[in-house]
């Protein structure tokens, strides 16, 4: 049984709608944080915030624990190479999203600093 690209899109058309509010909320959070920061002069290459980076890393690491739980499973059942690839990819995604939100927000709170 193989899925074509159009078949995959058909499956996603049923899989995504239940999560659409969550996806849109996260996207809105990201866009708003970035937009507000940039309106106040935020540039991620010109601003450093170590706490935001640490929190983002911790958020990513915590994914290894809560994502299996969220799916009704547990970390002990993450066993195959595919399992770990999927979980690590999710952790990286969470870390990146967290950083992209927290970094401009910290700029708004702390104001412009060199690092």
């Amino acid at each position: 049984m193989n899925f074509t690209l159009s078949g995959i899109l058909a499956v996603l058309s049923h899989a995504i709608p239940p999560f659409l509010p969550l996806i849109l909320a996260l996207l809105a959070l990201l866009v708003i944080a970035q937009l507000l920061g940039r309106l106040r002069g935020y540039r991620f290459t010109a601003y450093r915030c170590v706490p935001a980076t640490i929190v983002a890393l911790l958020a990513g690491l915590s994914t290894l624990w809560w994502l299996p739980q969220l799916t009704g499973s547990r970390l002990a059942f993450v066993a195959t190479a595919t399992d770990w690839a999927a979980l690590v990819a999710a952790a990286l995604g969470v870390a990146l999203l967290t950083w992209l939100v927290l970094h401009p927000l910290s700029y708004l709170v702390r104001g412009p600093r060199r690092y």
Partner: protein
Amino acid sequence: MTRHLAPPRMDRRQLLKLGLGAGAAGLLPLAGLEATTVPTRAHIVILGGGAAGMAMANRLAMRLSGARITVVEPREIHHYQPGWTLVACGVWHPDRTLRSNADFMPRGIDWIRQPAVGVDAEQRRVSLADGSIAEYDYLVVATGLQLNYHLIDGMSPELIGSHGIGSVYASLEGATRTRDAIDEWLARGSGQGLFTAAPTPVKCAGAPLKMTFTTLSRIKDTGRRDAFRLDYLTPGEAMFSQPWVDDFLKRRFDDEGVQRRHHYRLSAIDPGARQAEFTFVGPASEFTSHHELRQAEFGREGEMTEVIDYDFIHVVPPMSAPDVIRESDLIAREGPFRGEWLDTDIHTLQHNRYPEVFGIGDVIGAPINKTAASVKAQAPVVEANLLAQLQGQALPARHNGYTSCPLITDIGKAMLVEFGYDNDMAFLPSFSFIDPKEESWVAWVLKDYLLQPAYYAMLEGRV
């Protein structure tokens, strides 16, 4: 009673889906989206609007122009039956398996909301419950199968949920009451659990195993594993038709302390006394040839019986084609499926004696593949062959027996087992990144989140 195909109307949900699909459609090669239609004035009747019937209704509606298509399906609600094991182990809320049949029924189809009570294959007529007749040029039999609880003395579906009796197959309510019966057993803190298998082909042959594994998982979570005894009683020597999986299951059950008892058929149950009677069926009744153990012969298998006490029992009933098919000309008259299942060529899915009749899904006489995944593989074959038959051409498509079982081995992990008639697991896995021989979290996530959307896309004829 029937009418010609009308232009489709879209509700908001369908519009949203179309938008999602259209956004990426530009990325696709045009050839992938093309589908030639076949003009015809034929009247095609589809018996059943479950997974197989609905998939065929949508596929034929897309491929035929001018045809009259009638679906005979009395139920308004569509049940996602592959989710019932997740309901019975408490992972899913029952409502998650429910959709309206109207969500999937293609526009322009004549939907007869009553059961068929007879089929006259010689006259090409289907008798309906209200006494009316639907005549057909072509018939697609997609009735599903029948659960024969009455062949177990003392057993009826109404008992599920009481007296420690569970049975995930009976219905959504049955799955929910099975969950409650397991909860009650676990709350007792100890006891004997019996998990049975049936001496006939069954739909979702992995379900009895899943019920054993998920219940074991819940028992281990209580921290009192040693206080519970689990026995798995099966009529055959094998527990699963696919040899590699069979070996795996036997090893796993032995490692987990689940007692395997082979050649046991559940023959009677005494709910009040919480006792089950098993009949020894003999070493010749292998799982893969158990259809030789015919229902009419159940009463004279031998004298050996054993009565076992239980605190919880999971009952798997004998199964067959529905009576409306068994009592018709369409039933197999010889071979291993005689008197019990639809007489179809297991590769072309065309009826062996009536070329205008095709079978799909649980009802067909086939050694394996009574799953939704099988329907996904069978639907394109029936579509292609029916269209060829309609045009007087040779049948071009053959079904290889593909079936799949997302075998839950613990609450939180699963194996995505795939195989076919050859039983050699030589299929390219549907997901090349998932090894069908490994227990995996990703396979569990697929079962929990993605297979249901794939099922609904299949109903719509889009995969």
